[in-house]
């Protein structure tokens, strides 16, 4: 049990991420339609869906980049809209489009991020060196981000998400632009992170990655969570996740 500054008791059963009847409307489109989902601490949750299903919107809602039209999102019990600073302090976010300020070097960007999380200089230096080593940044660390490939930007942004030892990682399409070595590295990092108690909310198109990494899978389509469970529960009697995915997202095709 833990007691927050607001005096509320937080149970260790508190979900790492909770979507509580969340709606998000953009003009006339329901991007998220009554999403209710709990992700447990230490879990790697794979979030799948076709293009425009609402995956990125759900990710941004959890990161506090987008305000819900209705409902609440909590990160380890902290409401993202009511107590954003507390929620964001324990979250690391990797967006689908890894933009870094082009005039900063990778190292400067990480140090800047460390400053945003109020890390002290000694801890920052140690963590930056560790993450550069972990993500095999090498000589690119001191070159300006304007010269980086997409894959290198992805690595720097991922490193920035882990910098402050967050409890939750929100990661949107992490493998895009990475070479095979990079993909393998990211998978290893995510597995190790979950093994040490961290929670990962992973959004991806690549079903094989979701199959390989996820403890549980959720499939979203047109803003609605249409199924959620372990790989076996989602696949049901189908051999491959792909078949199950297509069946779930295109029921009219009777696949």
């Amino acid at each position, binding site marked *: 049990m833990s007691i927050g500054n607001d005096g509320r008791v937080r149970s260790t059963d508190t979900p790492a991420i909770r979507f509580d009847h969340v709606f998000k409307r953009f003009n006339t489109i329901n991007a998220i339609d009554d999403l209710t989902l709990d992700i447990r601490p230490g879990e790697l949750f794979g979030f799948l869906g076709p293009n425009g299903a609402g995956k990125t919107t759900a990710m*941004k809602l959890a*990161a*506090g*980049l*987008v*305000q819900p039209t209705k409902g609440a999102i909590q990160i380890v019990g902290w409401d993202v809209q009511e107590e*954003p*600073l*507390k929620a*964001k*302090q324990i*979250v690391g*976010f990797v*967006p689908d*489009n890894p*933009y*870094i*300020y082009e*005039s*900063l*070097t990778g*190292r*400067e960007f990480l*140090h*800047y*991020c*460390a*400053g*945003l*999380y*109020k*890390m*002290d*200089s000694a801890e*920052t*230096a140690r963590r*930056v060196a560790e993450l550069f080593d972990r993500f095999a940044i090498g000589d690119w*660390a*001191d*070159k*300006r981000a*304007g*010269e980086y490939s997409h894959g290198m930007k992805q690595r720097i942004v991922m490193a*920035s998400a882990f910098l402050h030892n967050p409890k939750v990682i929100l990661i949107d399409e992490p493998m895009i632009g990475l070479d095979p070595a990079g993909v393998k590295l990211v998978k290893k990092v995510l597995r190790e992170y979950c093994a040490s108690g961290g929670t990962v909310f992973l959004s991806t198109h690549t079903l094989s990655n979701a199959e390989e990494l996820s403890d549980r899978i959720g499939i979203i389509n047109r803003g609605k969570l249409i199924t959620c469970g372990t790989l076996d529960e989602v696949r049901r009697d189908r051999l491959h996740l792909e078949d199950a995915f297509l069946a779930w997202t295109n029921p009219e095709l009777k696949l």
Partner: protein
Amino acid sequence: MRLGKLTSLLVIVLFGIGATFFFRTVFENLLDLESIGEPLLWRVIGIALVTVFALLIVSNLITGIATLYRSDEIPFMFSKPVSYHKVYLSRFIDNLLYSSWSLAVLGVPIVIAWGLVFHASLWTTSALIIFGLLPLVLIAAELGTAALTLLILIARWTSPKLAMTIVIGVIIGAVGVVVQQRSHGLVVEGTARMSTVERYLTGLSRENLSPATPPYWLAAAMRAVQRRNHQRAAFFGVLLTLTSLVWLRWLVRWSGKAYYPSWAAFSEFTGLRSRASPAHAARRFTRGWLPNPLNAMLRKDILQFIRNPSQWGQFLILIAFLLVYLLNLVYVSSRLNFDDPHWKTMVLFLNFAFTGFILATLSVRFVFPLISLEGRGFWTLRSAPVSVNLLFWEKFFLAFAVFMGLCELIVFFSNHVLHVTGAMMILTTAATFLMGIALTGLAIGMGALFPDFKDQSPMRIASTPGGVLTVVISLIYVAVMVAILGWPARGYFLYLLGRAPFPAGRALVALGLVLGVNTLILLIPVRFGRYAIQVRDA
């Protein structure tokens, strides 16, 4: 958003109407001056045209860096089966519109006001705008972008440092030329003999522009219209129009050919950087006088500014213009008698108005885009435990510290040069301080209300409808401040001359008005701007 654009358009139209009447009043007042009125008016018009022309050239050169060389569209366009000349032409037009339209808009009220004063017909005034002012703007844009392409090619053939040295040399040379010119200024001693005065008047009537320059052609066309010499006016109109079109064709042909290699060279330049040591990078963001995350945010903004040539390049050019102004002020103050309270008040408040104008220009050009420049990197701040309040105030204090330092230096130096002491020194210094706070808050608030996260060019962001609206409100605010403070200041000078009692009542009323106006200008945009960012989806 549509409402914002309509509001901006309405404000621009109203501003245009107000500016027309303002210039008309200025022209009529100048013409009222016996003997020297008309030559003085033409001298002022000549100086204004040259200044606008020079500003347009520089503006096109600076914005060309972003529009012609850094835009994300360019690689896409080059990958398509479109000739380099066409790509260049499309980028040139884009650059022309962004960098020139505000000055062109300001030029229209000047020409209309001139037409009203000299009773030119609507057709004649319209013809002057279409065949005079617009070709002038186009020629300036052609010169600016050609100079930019040439500089980049020089950098490619030799080195970027040489190109930068040439730019700095040209700026210093231009400042030197202007300083040299002012020695032939319009000052005659009060005890001068009649022959000296006559020589001065003749000199004033003589053309101060070189006949080979487009500003001369436009001024000559305007003079010809005034003298009902429509043939001569048509000649200069045709000259301007044909020159602008011929140069455009030549520019597209030459610069279009050089565009792809210069763009490729520019892309390579961005990779040539001096490397900061890792330890230095660490210190920048994690240690400092201020706590984090404020320290980290400030350092990041400062680094981004320093490493963006279009930002500090424009800033340097602005400093150069300020230096020219201050040098002129020193010269004028050494030759004019400032014991006369009428002149003293007028020059003091003109200086104060100029400082306000500088603050307004700086705030729109550099402060308004600050929130927008977070751009695609906004997710970093919004996903971090950083409150919107902190983001707002960090931008505010960074901008305020820089511009206030600059403007208080200008005010202090110019007050010293104009021998202003005591109450007037305190008044202008305090008023400049208040203006700095208000204008910075206005620009930040409006920048948050009308952000443009897609564009990374500060000049283009400042040219959006929101930026234009901010310029107009800023200039109106400066005019209001000058008017409010001028009222008790005049009373104070009359008091010093023993012609009126101490204007305590006026001072109190003016103080109340100043505090009220500044509170409104600061708080309303800041409040709404903060709210806009808070509810904005990143």
